[in-house]
């Protein structure tokens, strides 16, 4: 996080510290739920990837704005042999 604007240093009190700890714990749960949901989406996502790789050969790949180029079949990437994730 680097909005790089002014932050005025101050001492966090006990209530603020406790609030932050609770929020961090809840965020961890939200994050885990997202990771799980995104793993469950994997089969659908694979289909979306395949459709995308097809469209960029036919309708075209957006290089810049509406400028599109058709990607040659031989240039289509192969799925690497390693686990794939979309949430980091």
């Amino acid at each position, binding site marked *: 996080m680097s*909005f790089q604007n002014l932050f005025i240093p101050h001492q966090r009190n006990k209530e603020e510290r406790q609030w932050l700890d609770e929020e961090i714990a809840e965020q961890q749960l939200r994050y885990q739920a997202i990771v799980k949901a995104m793993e469950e989406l994997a089969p659908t996502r694979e289909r979306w990837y395949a459709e995308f790789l097809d469209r960029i050969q036919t309708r075209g790949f957006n290089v810049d704005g509406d400028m599109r180029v058709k990607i040659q079949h031989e240039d289509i990437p192969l799925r*690497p042999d390693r686990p794939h994730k979309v949430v980091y």
Partner: protein
Amino acid sequence: MARPHIEPFCDRDVPFKPMKLKGFGGGMHYKMLSLDTDTGACTMTVKLDGGYAQKPGFSWSELELLVIEGELQVGDKTVGKGHYFFVPAGHAMPAWRSAQGCLLLMMYNTGEPSLVESDTHHPDARTDRYHETDSYNDIPWALGNVTKPNVASGCLIKLLNFNDRSHALTFLYCMTPHFWQDNISYHDCAEESYHLWGDSWMMQFGTVPTGGYFWRPAYINHGAFASELGCIALGRTDSKLFNHFHYNPWSTVEENQARAAARTAERDPLLYRWIVQHGHNHPHGPEDFEDTMQRIGGSRKYRSVQPDKNKPFAHSHGQHGQHHHGDDKAHDHDH
């Protein structure tokens, strides 16, 4: 760590919680969208009950605020849907009231939410940076080409804030119904979005509805993009936005980072040489996965092994392609 990757999330899926931090009035409720675990900086949807009242005061953190629904009285001024405030840390806001209640998007950029009762600014406040606008009525929609390469037609923006040091942006954006853009993007900055209305789809994360949200750290693939009904959203970046477009759905964050550095070396060779490499004249750039990734027709790197003499920092290693630089990457290099 900073804020984790929260994507996708929809605030409609969770209930409001009462705000317990001191200083805020009773009748403030919130849903946490994302939180920086070190600084406490966060983005929240906030509901103020009818009759809400808050004393004048400032925050230790920089605050951005957008009215989503309803009306908010700030001092003697009443603002409504689409009103945006940029409030520097230490800048005292007048008293707040909301007769009928309202829904807000509140973004504390540099620390946890705080409200210190005061009718004067903190001596360190950068009061010159304060600004506000009725974004729905006072700013026209402009083409989304704030950077090159840019988004496809049908994605429009209204710029709300620009940080002249970090080039961080805050903007409203909309996608027209049936918008689509067939590329995968990543950035050198974190990106955040809250869907005020409508839907949008990305092929990694699926469809995000009204109330949908993401906080996405740098270098994470997103897109292709589409919107069925259209959408309007608040977007932010935490530093300069550059669209690294490509079409490899499986590239990793590390590969995307290396490619970003490789492209910096190509685009700004002097900058790369003197800043990124600290003056060390290294003829190799980092690896651009577009040169080395496995494609149906084989990787590009091995299709052409002739060095391009026009590229100052690229040279060919021949068919073997790789050699070891050691772990610390600092070494003398004679070729």
